[in-house]
Structures are given as structure tokens and as C-alpha cells.
């Protein structure tokens, strides 16, 4: 199994490697204009330069902090509200229609309001990211709890479990797979929203580096930031997925269910942004 995974994992690298080689070749032979599409080697060089100047780590650090804070804030609120609406029909009828209508507001529309309320510094950025992370986590938590097998709940009732014991012994473990999928979706959106947040007037961060590269005509910096977003986004998702797998190793079809839901989450993401 690990060998097969390694093989399928490695096969995913073939296409990017070929494209990189093609790209490098086109740049070398002057087909691609360097002021629009700098060669991969030039991008790498600019990353190294930014790193050596000590500037790069500052940008990465502040972006990571914003993502982490926004994600944690969104997660905390989404977990509580998702648990409430999943567990109780009354809370669902009370809260869910309102929250669903908020979901249809495009993320960018929040920016002026958050800036007005919270200023142009960290608070408004973190809040925007939290809003992004909120919905997938909220929706999956609610659905996860609602979809808990009533037959298992009945088994718990037969053996005298109720209230907190029922939540801890049955509802929580049964909801965990959906919750983890929600967390991964939320983290993905947190990474998207951090770019939007850093576009709205930041002086640091990977999003700032992106804008700065455009305004100062340094395409290598733009591509470098995009690359770094991809790397950190993927790395954080991988971390979360690995953590999640530890908790839900019992699940028969976790892999396939996860892929299906990830696809659904992608679709949802397209609609949100």
C-alpha cells in the first residue's frame, strides 16, 4: 500500500516537472518575454534574494499568523453554532436561515464594512478570514451531527446513555469525520481570504508581496508569492489531513468519502468566492 501511494504520489509530480522544463526552455530561448513570464530559475532567484535580505520570512510569518488566527476564530464560532444547529431543531430553525443568507454575500463585500468597523490593521483582516473559514466548518458540523446514525443513538439509549455521556460517547466520535472535512474546507478558504485581506491595504504578508510585485513591475515576485501560497496552503492542509486521519482511522471508507466531500467543498468554495 505505501509503495502504491508513493508511486501515485510521484506520478503527480510528472506534469508540473514537464511544465517547468517547458517554461524554462521557452524563457531561455526568448519565446516568453521575461517582463511578463520570468523563467522558473528567475523566480527561484528572487525567492532566494528575498530570503537573504531577511524580508521574506517576515511576510510569511505575518500571513501564517493571520491565517491561523482567522481560522481558529472561525473554527471556534462555527463549531459552537454548528453543534447547536445540528443537535437541536429549534436552534436550526432559529439560526440556519440567517447564517445561510450571510453565506451568499460575496467575501469582498465585507471588506469595506470590516475596515470601517475594525480599522485597516489586523482585526479587520483576521475577521474576514474567520468569515471565510466559518462556513465550511459550520455546515459540515451541522450536517455531521444531523447525519449521525439514529440506530447507534438508540443503542446508547438502551444502555442508559443520555445528555453529556451520549454526546461524548456517540455524537462526538460519529461527527468527527464530517468535522475534519469541514476543518479542511475552512482552512482552504482561510488561505483564499487571506489574499483578499492582504489586498485591502497591508504593508506585509505574501498578499502584499503579490500586489507589490505588480505595482513595481516585478513578475518574479508575483509568481514567487503564488508559489509560496501554494506550498503553505498545501502543507497546512496535509498537516490537518494527517491529524484527522489519526482520529478517524476506524472509518471504512474515509478516503473515498473524504474525496467526495472535498469535491463538494470545492464546488461550494467556487460559489462563495
Amino acid at each position, binding site marked *: 500500500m505505501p509503495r502504491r501511494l508513493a508511486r501515485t504520489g510521484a506520478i503527480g509530480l510528472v506534469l508540473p516537472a514537464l511544465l517547468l522544463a517547458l517554461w524554462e526552455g521557452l524563457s531561455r530561448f526568448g519565446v516568453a518575454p521575461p517582463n511578463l513570464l520570468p523563467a522558473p530559475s528567475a523566480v527561484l532567484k528572487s525567492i532566494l534574494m528575498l530570503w537573504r535580505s531577511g524580508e521574506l520570512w517576515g511576510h510569511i510569518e505575518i500571513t501564517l499568523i493571520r491565517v491561523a488566527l482567522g481560522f481558529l476564530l472561525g473554527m471556534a464560532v462555527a463549531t459552537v453554532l454548528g453543534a447547536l444547529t445540528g443537535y437541536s431543531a429549534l436552534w436550526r430553525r432559529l439560526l440556519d436561515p440567517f447564517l445561510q443568507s450571510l453565506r451568499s454575500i460575496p467575501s469582498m463585500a465585507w471588506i469595506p464594512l470590516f475596515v470601517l468597523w475594525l480599522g485597516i490593521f489586523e482585526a479587520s483582516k483576521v475577521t474576514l478570514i474567520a468569515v471565510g473559514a466559518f462556513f465550511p466548518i459550520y455546515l459540515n458540523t451541522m450536517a455531521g451531527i444531523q447525519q449521525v446514525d439514529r*440506530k*447507534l443513538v438508540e*443503542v446508547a*439509549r*438502551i444502555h442508559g446513555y443520555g445528555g453529556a455521556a451520549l454526546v461524548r460517547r456517540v455524537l462526538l466520535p460519529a461527527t468527527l469525520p464530517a468535522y475534519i472535512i469541514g476543518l479542511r474546507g475552512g482552512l482552504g478558504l482561510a488561505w483564499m481570504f487571506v489574499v483578499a485581506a492582504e489586498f485591502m491595504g497591508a504593508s506585509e504578508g505574501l498578499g502584499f508581496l503579490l500586489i507589490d510585485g505588480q505595482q513595481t513591475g516585478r513578475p518574479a515576485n508575483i509568481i514567487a508569492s503564488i508559489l509560496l501560497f501554494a506550498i503553505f496552503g498545501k502543507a497546512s492542509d496535509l498537516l490537518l489531513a494527517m491529524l484527522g486521519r489519526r482520529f478517524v482511522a*476506524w472509518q471504512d471508507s474515509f478516503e473515498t468519502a473524504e474525496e467526495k466531500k472535498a469535491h463538494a467543498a470545492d464546488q461550494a468554495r467556487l460559489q462563495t468566492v
Partner: protein
Amino acid sequence: MLQIKRVSKRFEAFEALASVDLAVDRGEIVGIVGTSGCGKSTLLRIVAGLETPNSGSVTLDGVAVTSPRPEVGLVFQEPRLMPWLSVRENVEFALGKRPRDQRRSLAEAALARVGLATFADALPQQLSGGMAQRAAIARALVARPAVLLLDEPFSALDAFTRFSLQDHLLDIWRTDQPTMLFVTHDIEEALVLSDRVVVMHAKPGRIHAQYRIDLPRPRRRTEASLQNWKERILEDLDLAVKGGAAEPEFAI
């Protein structure tokens, strides 16, 4: 003694049970057969405390049963094991707040009795259907309930597994002698296991006839006298003659 008195239950317009009376002696094995919709499962769920009757009462040794009780164990049609718990943890689940050592040793003993000692650490997904149902039986029995209810416990299994689990259940019954009330739509199963077979009719759900099967156990499935019972019950259920759709007029 388990006493069911004039129990009625309706789900909106559907009359699931209409004034059902049934008394089951301590240690007695009673099998309930009936076509679908006759309320046999509902009756079992009421005795388990999972449903509340609209009228009538269920008492166990004089105490009213209104919610699930530790003295009453229930085996469902499906194993219903928690997929995130190991087989042993699933059995321990029935022991609630007892000390960990005690839970562990009781669960292991219960698993040994159903022949699953070596699978204690496996996850439910690794078990076959018959093994999973044995684990469910171990879970229902581990707290030594005075009454064991079984809701079509073997109906999802193939014939060979079903036979061996029926024998198995009788082995277990011999040591603890719990009162057993089980629902089945396999008449042969009811005849092989029960001291008494109760035939139920639908619309509204009610007891139509009862037969005392006073043959020693274990019984051979091919035993001639069982065939006579079988024929009578099939007639009761209106299944003996093809096309016979007339409602029998008598009741006990």
C-alpha cells in the same frame, strides 16, 4: 415475570398495536411471528422502553417499564456496533460507569462465550456479518439482563450462520436462563427456540394465537411434530393455501 397489559400504540392513523396482553414467565423463551406491519417490532420496542404506548402498561417483576432499563437487553436486527470502538470496547459500552478492570474482564468473558475472544481488539468493520451479530449479542448479555429482547436478530444472515447462532443462543440461555422475547418472521426459528410461539395479526396489530411447544431442546429442525406446528401457524398467517385471503374470524 414480564407483564404486558392492554398495550395499544398508534402512529398517527396507523394502529400498530391494539390492546395486546402477554405475560412471559421468568426464564421462558417466547417467539413472536407475524407478517410485516403486525406491530411485533413495536411491541418489542415498547418492552425495551424505546417507545411509549398510548395506553396500557409493561411491568417487569411488578415495576413499570417506561424507559430503557439495565435489566432489559436488546439485540437489533443489525449488529449496530460503534464503528470507532474495538469489539471489546463495544461490549464494554454496555457496562457504563463500572470500574475499568471490571468492564474489561466482563467484556472478555462475554466475548469468549460467543467465541470472539481472539477478535476483542478488532474493529467492527473487520468482522463478518455473523461475527458482528455475535458481538452484538455479547454486548446485550454482558450486563446479565433478566430479560433479553431480540428483534429479528438473525434475519440478515445466511442460513448456515443463522442455524449456528440459534444453537449458540440456546447455549447461552442454558447458563443464564434469561427471559427471552424475540421477534422473527422465520416460523422454523420460532419453533426451534421457543417454549411458546405467539402469532400476531396486522391492522390493527394484535395477538391472534399462541402455541406452547412442549418439546425438549435442542430440537431437530426436521422433527416431524414441528412440521405440524408449522402448518398450523402458516394457516394462522394465511400463508398455507395460496390465494387464501380471508381473515380468520377467531381470536384467543
